[in-house]
């Protein structure tokens, strides 16, 4: 009961002090707002980059050619063995017999069509193929080697070299964007701690009086922490507005892609709400950390 009463008071005091020290609150809020806007932009950018790289990675396909001598049972065996390889996406194992491959190639090009027309089942030089997609693109070369070991598999191709380079490049892009986001969040915390320290410095006297009349550190801290959370929440409003209205506008304007239809943007709903929620939580947590670390200094008198 007493705890509840004190908590109620803390919340009331927190709100009161935001308005009583309005200019200082405004300083903290604008600092939080600006840094959160930057954080929001970098979060959205990094999400888009990783989304785009993942999409490309998903399209990577391993093609395994089966030896001509393979019987029907052997092909069935190969299929089962493929299913046992953990990195292979079980739903994405596609078998095409050589006549299917022939037909497909014929529809693709006029030249192929005329050349292949004369081939019948017996002298078709093409091979039966498996088209396989992997779960983790980074291990594609390892998976390809595993497939090669399966009996009656003649050749395995996945665009070696080129794909490996692409994957390494994507990996470093992802790492850089994540690093940037984390660095930005740390900078935000630092900036906000300092701004809140300034606002609390002006209330040093108030804190020392609280100590003198017998307030416990917990009692003193709580309103400041709630105030910090409230400031963080207020500071996240403008960035959230910019996310919710800005991103869909950008998306519409660019027709959903950057430069080429290959590089797709993430569609706005539910993405903007997820990012908004993240920004709000970051704002609140950062405000909380900022004010609690700032007030600690004055609790030693």
């Amino acid at each position, binding site marked *: 009961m*007493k705890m509840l*009463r*004190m908590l109620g*008071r803390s919340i009331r005091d927190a709100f009161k002090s935001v308005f*009583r020290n309005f200019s200082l609150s405004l300083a903290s809020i604008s600092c939080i707002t600006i840094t959160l806007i930057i954080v929001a932009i970098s979060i959205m950018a990094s999400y888009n980059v990783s989304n785009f790289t993942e999409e490309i990675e998903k399209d990577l396909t391993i093609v395994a050619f089966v030896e001509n001598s393979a019987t029907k049972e052997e092909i069935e065996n190969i299929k089962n063995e493929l299913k046992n390889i953990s990195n292979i996406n079980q739903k994405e194992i596609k078998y095409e017999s050589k006549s299917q491959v022939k037909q497909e190639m014929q529809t693709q090009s006029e030249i192929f069509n005329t050349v292949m027309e004369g081939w019948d089942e017996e002298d078709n030089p093409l091979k039966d193929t498996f088209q396989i997609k992997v779960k983790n693109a980074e291990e594609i070369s390892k998976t390809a080697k595993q497939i090669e070991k399966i009996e009656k598999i003649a050749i395995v191709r996945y665009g070696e070299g080129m794909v490996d380079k692409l994957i390494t490049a994507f990996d470093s892009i992802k790492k850089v964007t994540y690093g940037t986001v984390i660095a930005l969040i740390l900078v935000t915390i630092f900036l906000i701690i300092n701004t809140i320290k300034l606002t609390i410095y002006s209330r040093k*006297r*108030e804190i*020392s*009086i*609280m*100590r*003198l*009349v*017998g*307030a*416990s*550190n917990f*009692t*003193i801290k709580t309103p400041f922490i709630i105030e910090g959370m409230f400031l963080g929440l207020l500071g996240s409003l403008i960035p959230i507005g910019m996310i919710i209205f800005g991103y869909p506008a950008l998306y519409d304007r660019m027709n959903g892609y950057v430069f080429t239809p290959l590089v797709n943007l993430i569609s706005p709903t539910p993405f903007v709400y997820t990012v908004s929620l993240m920004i709000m939580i970051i704002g609140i947590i950062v405000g909380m950390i900022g004010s609690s670390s700032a007030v600690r200094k004055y*609790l*030693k*008198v």
Partner: protein
Amino acid sequence: MDIIRLKNVKKQYKNGTTAIYDLSLNIEKGSFVFIIGGSGSGKSTLMKMLYREEKPTKGQIIVGGLNVAKLRNSKVYKLRRKLGIVFQDYRLLPKQTVYENVAFAMEVIGATKQETRVKVLKALEIVGLKNKVHSYPDQLSGGEQQRVAIARAIVNNPKMLLCDEPTGNLDPEMSIEIMKIIEKINKDWGTTVLVVTHDKEIVNKMKKQVITLKEGRLVNNKAKGTYDNENA
């Protein structure tokens, strides 16, 4: 029974100056004590150690059963709740009304609204400011502000009232009025009162126990003392 007990207390500040050398002192419950001495005598340091703004370098200080020298920073509030402290510069919150300033001391210890109201009005009545509850500190005279500070100090019925130069900023008439209020609290409630002062007139007039410090040492402790120029 002694409410304050100091044993071989020494206080040396970090910059090397020693404010108190080997001070032993007992103060009885319910007494009214003046602590006097010139500048640099250590009287303010002594006061600060009693409410643990400063820690002694050596020795033992017991205040109201609490070992102040060993009190952890996070537990200081337990000591402060037994004390009422009055300062020369009042230390009121400028943006809060008289009522809020006094109620503040009740709220931080988690009292109910009802209890707070009753006690705050009672305290303001004792200091004679019941008609100014809604004023802000800067609308009051120095004497009135000090009375608000006294009301805040006594609102929790503390065992002890520590006053550090309570009349330092006030004219003689106002000073006497303030001292009368403090004396009344001592008599009516049995609150132990310690007053650090260099106001000769008040000390001589009130005929209370007087502890004289000089250069960090106790030089005199008289039951009905006066302000002695030779010692101070």
